[in-house]
């Protein structure tokens, strides 16, 4: 299923050593990799392994708040899911955190199973994201192999235009359009038109754009 080098890593960020070490120990005891940081700055400056993972973060850290940090991550395109730990149930903060994409908002002292479930969910989500990122990257590569004419034709194809209509629009012969379409299907490794439409979707290509 998962290759061994892809062992997930949990990043525990808390300024309190008791929490950092306790939570870290718990996660290690279920076989997860753990890296601990006393502050978000330390985390941002660290070299992170290329592996699926998630962040366990104290919402009331000194310096930028947990929510601010969440934004910083998005801006730095670090897309690790975050599980917030909070000293006491702060409902408005937890709602904001969840809306901003946090996996879970747990109250200290954390319930073991809740934490482990949240961490597993976070890792799973990260893994999916990584898979998708990988897929999109591959599609982008295929897309990049298209000629400029083919890139013109593609959006028209995926919006369901007939060859004849495309030929009219681009002032080409119907035969030429048919050849382009065949090249596109081959280079994109699309099994069907539906398949191609889905790929275009993932790449964010629509006919309006062109």
């Amino acid at each position: 299923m998962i290759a061994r080098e892809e062992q997930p890593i949990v990043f525990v960020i808390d300024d309190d050593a008791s929490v950092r070490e306790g939570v870290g120990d718990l996660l290690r005891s279920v076989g997860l990799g753990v890296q601990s940081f006393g502050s978000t700055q330390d985390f941002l400056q660290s070299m992170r392994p290329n592996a699926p993972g998630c962040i366990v973060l104290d919402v009331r850290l000194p310096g930028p708040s947990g929510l601010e940090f969440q934004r910083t991550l998005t801006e730095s395109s670090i897309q690790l899911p975050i599980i917030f730990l909070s000293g006491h149930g702060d409902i408005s903060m937890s709602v904001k955190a969840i809306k901003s994409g946090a996996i879970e908002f747990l109250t200290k002292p954390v319930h073991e199973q809740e934490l482990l479930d949240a961490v597993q969910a976070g890792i799973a989500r990260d893994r999916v994201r990584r898979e998708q990122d990988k897929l999109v990257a591959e599609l982008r590569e295929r897309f990049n192999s298209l000629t400029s004419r083919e890139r013109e034709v593609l959006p028209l194809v995926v919006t369901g235009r007939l060859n004849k209509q495309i030929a009219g629009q681009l002032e080409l012969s119907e035969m030429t359009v048919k050849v382009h379409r065949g090249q596109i299907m081959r280079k994109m490794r699309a099994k069907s038109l539906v398949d191609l439409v889905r790929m275009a979707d993932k790449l964010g290509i629509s006919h309006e754009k062109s």
Partner: protein
Amino acid sequence: MRPIRRRNRRRGLYGNRQSGNLGLANGDADGFDFPVISSQMTELSEAAGIVALQMNRDNADIENKKGAAEAPRPSEGQWQQVFEHSPAMYFLVEATSTTVLSVNALGASQLGYRASELVGHSALDLVFEEDREFARKNIAACLDTLGQSNSWEVRKVRKDGMVLRIREYGKGIPWSENQPIVLIASEDITGRDLDELESSRLATIVSSSDDAIITKTLDGKVTSWNASATSIFGYQASEMIGQPITRIIPPELHGEERQILARLARGERLQHYETVRIAKDGRRVDISLTVSPLISRSGKVVGASKIARDITATKRADAELQQARIEFARVARVTTLGELTAAIAHEVNQPLTGLVSSGNACLRWLAGEAPDLEAARRSIERMIRDGTRAGEVIGRIRAMMRKSKPQRDSLNINDAIMDVLALLRTEIHRNDISPYIELSNDLSLVWGDRVQLQQVILNLIMNAIEAMSGISRTQRRLSISSVKDGRNGVLVSVRDSGPGFDETAPDRLFEAFYTTKENGMGIGLAVSRTIIQAHCGRLWAMPNAPQGAIFQFTLPTDSEHEP
């Protein structure tokens, strides 16, 4: 006791003195009474006494010259001797012209003259100008009542210009060829009425005082006992005078009385000494005692005067006030801690989170076919550490909340500061403040109530944190320091970089219910100041540079405070 007579009082006669209190006696029919006027005079001179008594008793004889002549009498030479050596001033004055015929040495010298300078001149020349007519009339009046003593007061001017008040006793005496002369005996009473007024005022004060005023001998026998002594202790003066003072002293305090007497014998005074006495009905009375030695003219300590104030009611009120203060301080403390609930909950939750997580981890290390004992042991060590830490936090809170009597101990103020900082760690951290802490190592111990002093430190630091909540995180500066104050004292300062306070009225800050905070009760600083003052210290505010406030308090050290 010389009666002050107010007959013939003249306006303006003693215009430069307290005329309302001065009386003029005139035309006394009692004869010469100067032997009893002044005890000083009788003490000083036997001779004068003899003369006076003679004159007094033989009043009738003088009127009837014949009878008197038959009795054995001193010779004229002897009289001359008496006259010359008498410490009273004697003038023999010709009645009509007022010319001085003779004056004794003292009479002249008391006015700064030699006798030879006065003889032949008018006696009125010595009298203060305004009083001359009055004096002349009085001398003249002696002629109308030959053989009777008249008395009056005039002002006389000493040679150096000083005005003296003189009481004169004049008597017209038939002299040779029926030419009467007037014998005037004079007494300098300048300032005497003030002494008299003073003693009557003292007598009034003693009898009307609400304080018990008691005198006693050095061996502790009561010699006087005023009305308030009776109302406070229940014994009548007749029951106590001559009795040992120990009658009202509780048996366990007899030693104290011996110490007091010993101190008195050395001439020392004892002021506002709080102790207990027993009233006649057995009731214990709290009193504040001031004891002064009674010193005789010769400078010997001959007894003691005791002023005792009944402070039973004051003490009860004090105790009630103290109780109210304690309760107030506790409420203030609990209120402050209430504001801190979130921070404190966090402070307990942190170690608990670590503890629970490590416990779960430990179970997992032990589970399975090959338990990792080493990892499990490390987990348990952490659990012990975290549990201890949580316990300490709770201990600190409980200590701050406890409802017990203040307890004074010797304590290191730095320990108190560190305890408070530990409690406020999260609060300080959360506000992005890195406190600058500088505690001096060579502080003496202070004598105080740890919880109360911590409350003050807590209030000051909380105030500093809150003051800075409105300013940018990077500009927040909190510094806490302790240094030596003076020779032995301790000075604790809490500085912030907040907006500061209204410098025109720094003391308003310490008024109860004065607050600039939306949710504050405004009692923190008021309570803090009360606490510091109860520790004989001082708490004040001053502006910090370049901005913010400094709150400082001083405390005396242990040694200065030991009872």
